[in-house]
């Protein structure tokens, strides 16, 4: 960075005022006997965006903290950070090249959709069992592994759709069996601390699965072939394809945005499955039963729903969703037994960011994390350093969420049961 001191000065100024803002605003709202649940968040964002000029009126007037008052300072804070970066590093691609920026944003959105989809599975498990599945990344890995082995090793030339379905079926069964064998003591009151038991036992599953795959498949990276080639298109005309140009492996929009085929396909599939899932959750009896259990176990049981069976279904379905994401992405990334660790962490972040058990929250959270990662990998000057920090970007989002707004974007404020605690 050319003028890195500008960036760091602005950043420390923002951090200072956001810390001050979060404490002072909460204090003042508490003193005036107002709702403090969002005060710390608004205060810190106001402090980060316009510093004392925003904090003083906020503390003097103590307005009602509406949604608009929460979103605007947060966006402003992001904008300030971006402007500071632009001034600090005027030579950077992120500042000079608009096509690079557009490309990063579109790719961030696409990968964010996939992240969000994967996090959805975790959110489902979390909202119904009250447990974070630490084996989520391993389901993702196994989904990809099965698809790769079926299409490339066991039955070469097999239609990828069949392999993907087989991967989903296998992980669904695996999830159901594991839940029956190992998670049942949680609901029967046999363990003192069910949440911790759940964390540890899924952690054990993750460990076992990861090394089992490594022992059987080896530690060399795999990469599946593309499932589908794009038709070659030139729009509006073959001489001047400024609107759209495709080759078999990628697609170019407006001569500036390049999207690779596997990612676009993965995102498309995720959206389709998401719609199917929403239909299932909203319209079918089983889906409604699932949502009922996530809202109130006892009441659902009284209404004739068997919560234990819903637990099994949720865990199996959650694992299957992760496996589907993995099966779609095995054609985009090289696949190792350890590949699940980073997506799993990312899913945790998205679930916390979106709010527990909130499906739209998980999706929006996924897109935000996707954009943050795209910005992080694209804009940090030293590419090697930027790549090393990939797991850290989402963790920074997690840290900020837990510090500023532990309920997440769409979190329920008064959730019952084990998952209401944090």
């Amino acid at each position, binding site marked *: 960075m050319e003028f890195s001191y500008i960036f760091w000065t602005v950043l420390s100024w923002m951090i200072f005022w956001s810390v001050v803002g979060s404490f002072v605003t909460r204090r003042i709202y508490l003193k005036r006997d107002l709702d403090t649940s969002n005060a710390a968040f608004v205060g810190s964002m106001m402090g980060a965006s316009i510093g004392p000029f925003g904090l003083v009126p906020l503390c003097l007037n103590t307005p009602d903290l509406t949604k608009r008052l929460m979103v605007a300072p947060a966006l402003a804070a992001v904008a300030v950070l971006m402007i500071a970066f632009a001034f600090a590093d005027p030579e950077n691609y992120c500042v000079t090249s608009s096509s690079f920026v557009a490309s990063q944003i579109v790719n961030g959105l696409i990968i964010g959709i996939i992240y969000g989809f994967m996090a959805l599975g975790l959110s489902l498990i979390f909202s119904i069992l009250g447990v974070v599945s630490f084996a989520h990344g391993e389901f993702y890995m196994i989904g990809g592994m099965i698809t790769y082995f079926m299409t490339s090793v066991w039955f070469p030339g097999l239609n990828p759709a069949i392999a993907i379905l087989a991967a989903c079926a296998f992980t669904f069964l695996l999830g159901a069996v594991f839940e029956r064998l190992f998670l049942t003591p949680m609901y029967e009151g046999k363990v003192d601390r069910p949440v911790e038991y759940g964390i540890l036992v899924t952690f054990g599953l993750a460990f076992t699965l990861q*090394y089992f795959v490594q022992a059987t498949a080896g530690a060399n990276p795999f990469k599946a072939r593309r499932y589908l080639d794009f038709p070659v298109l030139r729009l509006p005309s073959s001489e001047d394809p400024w609107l759209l140009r495709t080759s078999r492996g990628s697609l170019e929009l407006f001569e500036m945005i390049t999207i690779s085929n596997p990612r676009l396909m993965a995102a498309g599939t995720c959206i389709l499955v998401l719609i199917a899932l929403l239909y299932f959750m909203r319209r079918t009896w089983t889906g409604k039963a699932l949502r009922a259990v996530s809202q109130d176990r006892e009441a659902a049981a009284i209404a004739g729903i068997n919560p234990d069976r819903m637990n099994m279904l949720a865990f199996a379905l959650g694992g299957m969703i992760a496996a589907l994401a993995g099966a779609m992405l095995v054609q985009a990334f090289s696949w190792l037994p350890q590949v699940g*660790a980073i997506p799993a962490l990312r899913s945790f972040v998205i679930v916390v960011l979106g709010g527990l058990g909130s499906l739209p929250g998980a999706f929006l959270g996924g897109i935000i994390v996707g954009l943050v990662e795209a910005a992080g990998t694209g804009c940090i000057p030293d590419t090697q350093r930027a790549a090393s920090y990939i797991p850290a970007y989402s963790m920074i989002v997690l840290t900020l969420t*837990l510090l500023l707004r532990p309920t997440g974007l769409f979190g329920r404020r008064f959730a019952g049961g084990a998952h209401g605690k944090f």
Partner: protein
Amino acid sequence: MKRQHIPALAGLLIVAFFMAFPFLYGANDYRYIMSLLIAGFYYAILASSWSMLAGYAGQFSFGHMGFMGVGAYTAALFSHYFYLSPVPTELCTEFLIGNQYLVIVDAIGVTSSTLNQDCLRQALTIWDGSVQVTPMPVWLGIVLGTVMGGLFGLLIGLLVLPLRAAYLALFTLGFSEILRATISGEIAITRGQAGIEMPYLFEQGITLFGRYYDKTDKIPPYFVMFFLLLTCLAILYYLASSKFGLFVRALREDQDAAAALGVNTTRYKIMVFVITSMMAALAGAVMGYYVNIISPNNLMILQMSLVVAMAVIGGIENIFAAAIGAIIIQFVLEILRNSFEIGPFTVDMTIWRLVIFGVLLMLTLRFARNGLIIPIIDYFSRGHVAAETVAKRTAGIDKAEGRS
């Protein structure tokens, strides 16, 4: 002899065995077994301090290896970048302290060319052996590492105050990952994945009881690690059996109820974080000096899984059980390392042993929630209590039912 004294007696016997072991054992694989035991003690410190944090206080932190890394990296960076020189180098940043110059070497990262040397090496080339530069004492590195671990523990303890259960686990995992990413990313300072070299624990060798030990000798680090383990266990045992242990267990059972009954939950939650992370950092710093290198791979989730699994299999609610579990599992894992062949297939045990280990972890959790070692301790120390209770209860039932 009463039965409940057996665990204490067995503990003394184990300590005596480990004290005598280096002098009695003389087989060919002496160095190998000794390094296994040193690693075993290292994992025992981590597992027992983690069992204090997770088992006693109920704070399921996955950042324990992060604290270990803080300790090890503080010590490594300190030893790598700070030197004492009687003559100013006039190339590095340096301060006059007493009659010596404190030289701070510039960070150049990993370079293969000899042209690009750091400022101290350049100065040494110019002096051509006429000046002796003293590296910083190792004990100071260990102390600094421990203190830094405590500071990070304080910081993380403050940040996780409002978090419970899953959120705490995620946050601490995040801390550990951010730390690992930072260390791998800042190649100029930490040399990234290449790892940073550290001096020997006793660079000049050491003379103990009239016998000289070389710097590569296993006996001094063995006893250093063993006494550290004993000290940590003593501190943890004292804490667990004092008011502190009672309060942190109250915190585990119900934080709100404990607070309502007058336990200063904030203070104890932070204290338990600081103490256990200091122990992890201490173990990390000493282990780093012993193996001469620390790299970000030591902070990986696999390492954390090992510590968690050791503590859980040993028994998470007893520090001694966790420590014994760690040593045993370290041994078993090493014994299982030998690959073998069944017909045409080679079974690569370096990986399969971890699969077995994972299955064992899950089965232990499912069927023996107290771990595998706590029940043995309990059988001897509390078995008579259970028998007496059963006898009393049957007597009570008999009386109530009017039988004699």
